[in-house]
């Protein structure tokens, strides 16, 4: 347990939020993608977060606070299997026999809201790091 544990916790969250932002940007980039190497339209991807215990050596000492210290990681990136949007476009090369193409199940609005949320969470964690840094620098001034 030291001052740097805070940095570890906040940086784990920043890493996770960055992965989330990458996923969102992938979704937004592929909002019109009708064909993928796996076949079919692009499927919306979403990140799934999970807590990770921090400070393993403290856990062994069974200190009270160490159980509460948890970082975060991206557990997995899930594909959304909901139905694709059907749009009538007979001239498109990916159109089926009825002239419909399947567009990805992505709502741009949802992705933008998710993106803002990821950015805000990222910013909250940078504030934590700033605060921890200020405390560490203050500690260096003891007895000056």
């Amino acid at each position, binding site marked *: 347990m030291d001052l740097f544990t805070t940095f570890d916790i906040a940086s784990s*969250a920043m890493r996770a939020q960055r992965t989330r932002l990458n996923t969102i940007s992938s979704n937004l980039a592929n909002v019109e993608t009708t064909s993928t190497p796996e076949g079919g339209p692009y499927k919306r991807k979403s990140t799934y977060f999970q807590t990770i215990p921090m400070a393993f050596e403290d856990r062994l000492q069974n200190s009270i*606070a160490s159980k*509460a210290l948890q970082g975060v990681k991206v557990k997995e990136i899930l594909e959304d299997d909901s139905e694709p949007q059907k749009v009538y476009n007979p001239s498109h090369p990916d159109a089926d026999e009825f002239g419909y193409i399947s567009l990805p199940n992505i709502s741009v609005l949802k992705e933008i809201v998710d993106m803002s949320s990821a950015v805000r969470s990222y910013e909250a964690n940078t504030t934590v790091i700033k605060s921890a840094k200020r405390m560490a620098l203050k500690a260096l001034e003891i007895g000056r």
Partner: protein
Amino acid sequence: MSILTQLDGAMNLLHKVLDLRTTNQQVIASNIANADTPGYAPASFQFEKQLRNAVSEVDIRPVTNQPGHFAITPDSINQIKGEITRSPDKTRIGDQNGVKLDQEMINLSENQILYEAAMTMLNKKLALLKYSANDGK
């Protein structure tokens, strides 16, 4: 216990306060990091009550003289460990994450300011010690 803390009881207290504030900061950092984790119950670290009990001059204390007894008030400042309480989300809406980000940010800055206050007091104490060690020069 170092010689400095033996010289001055307040120094010992400030040392403990800085320790506890550091732990509190880590707990808050953990809550903010998990602000988007589904089902996460935020933790809060409380030590103020224990600290008050240890500092205040209480004459009547429960005694532990049987193996089954456990101390309900800490005897000295050094024994204060603080306690963790978890408050899970009660709304049952969305991802059932109980973190209130605005509240956590307020706790973060409050904790930081109080840490710096304790640090300033410690520096004043050391300055006094230095002053007297230098024969008031």
